[in-house]
């Protein structure tokens, strides 16, 4: 049961975190819109991998979820702002 929860945290939670982190990193590291997408994508895989390792290394499944959801929520604000015309 705990393994299933961790697996869901890693796959779904990790994916959500890698997307918002990719958006923020892409925006922060690029001067043009097409580059932001490429940089964001290439960066997101690193975050996703880190999230996967995190989800299976914490002491409990709850901590795995918390450790992924907190940064996701923190980055969701800036990411939302960027989607509303960061490069406009």
């Amino acid at each position, binding site marked *: 049961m705990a393994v299933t929860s961790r697996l869901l945290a890693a796959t779904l939670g990790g994916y959500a975190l890698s*997307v918002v982190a990719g958006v923020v990193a892409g925006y922060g590291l690029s001067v043009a819109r*097409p580059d932001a997408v490429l940089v964001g994508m290439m960066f997101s895989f690193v975050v996703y991998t880190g999230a996967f390792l995190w989800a299976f290394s914490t002491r409990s499944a709850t901590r795995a979820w918390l450790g992924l959801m907190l940064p996701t929520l923190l980055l969701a604000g800036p990411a939302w702002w*960027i989607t509303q015309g960061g490069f406009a």
Partner: protein
Amino acid sequence: MKDGFRQSMAWLHTWTGLVLGWLLYFIFVTGTLGYLDTEIDRWMQPELPPAADNMTPTRAVTLGHDWLQANVASAKEWNILVPSDRNIPQLRLYWRDTDNERDSVNLDAAGEPVAARDTGGGQRLYRMHWQLHYLPGWFTGWLISIATFVMFVAMVTGVITHKKIFKDFFTFRPYKGQRSWLDAHNALSVLSLPFQLMITYSGLVFMMFLCMPLLISAFYGGGEAAEESFFDEVFLEEPEVTPSGEPAALVDLAPLIAQAEARWGAGRISHVGIKQPGDANARVHVNGLYSAGPLRTSPGMTFDGVTGELLHERAASGTVARNTRDVFLGLHEGMFAGPLLRFFYLLSSVMGTAMIATGLILWTVKRRQKLDSKGEGAALGVALVERLNVGTVVGLNIAVAVYFLANRLIPADFEGRADWEVHAMFLAWAAMLIHAGLRSPAQGWREQCVIAAVAFCAVPVVNALTTERHLVHSLAMGDWVFAGFDLAMIATGLTAAAVAFYLRGKPAEQPAGSRRAANRRRDASVSARP
């Protein structure tokens, strides 16, 4: 989740590696063969003349244009592949007719079409590396993305698991069962680690437009139109030109080729595409070499197809982000690699294949020893993995040999013969999986090694019986593609025979392990070589 970070990572390594191990093995075998794709193409169409890559682009384009004009003047689009290097060995034309159907032909040095057997060739084998077979495209795309990511996680956790990564370089303890398998797995992985990390991460980069679509939406908005505008901006696509309906003669192509060669260097042209030939809105696209270096892109020029005016020029090099992506893709495919570097590409990917095989075997050997020491019989899971290992690690390679045999044995006029080459391959694999299921693992390893030995050694024999281009002929002609192919088949077959001989007379209940470590490792690696 386990006690300690390293233990958790070892657990994750074990299970990510196991769950998709056989799929990853398939990806690595077909990917390894992909480094020899055009060589396999050439062997699979023995009717074609040897490579024509000493033909000048002007000559190739003139021959190509004359044939297209005479035979498919009404096509929507013409394409001429210029024989420029290893990647494009023959003058090849392909076109789309008014119904958007694609067709192609090869021309010889005199511009005459060469009839060759219909085959998927090395290209179809290579495309299985990321398209698999029999499965819908969207499903395959996601499956490959997930498998690649799982591979990456397995690589990173594998590195973390190792306490003594440097010492593993020099450690091999043969004839010690589980420990030998572990040493083999470690040595293979550590020695080729930079390659494996590069190949897996760049594999993700190949899949990123598919598996990270939300990042496009984030910057461009949702929907197909937004996605289109992203691709147009990244790849500097020019707007599509629609036919005017007014006929107009196509411009003489030779001066356009000369203009491109003056820009990029003599002979450095790989492809000429002509959109709506014979229309007043015709366009001529001239592309440079894709394989000039690790940057997987080519410079391009677009000309007006009636006046010959240069409308647009595209540099090979783009922004830093774009170049980063293109270098990852270029390193992955290795199209730029000459013979020596290509050899190291092969060696590294064979080691990657063997890394997966030893990992899968290690999983069973570990559990089998535990079960045996407790005096218990085979647990269902272990028994299943043992048999899937036999049927895939050896069986898939037998299937590849059958693919080559089918190319020679299916009659040239047989309806759908190219598809049946592939069916033969997968039928052979299915047969090997069934065989592995019916036999004990020890019998399975031994018998499939015998089958592999026969199948691989049969390839040059069947080639000699069905074509004029047998091994002696190839050696006498200095045709190293054909001779190399036949010799590689013989070497693979002999290695399988040696392993089978080594495994003879072992007690049937003993698991594949211990004294066979070194040989099995060699078998797994050699049999991945075409």
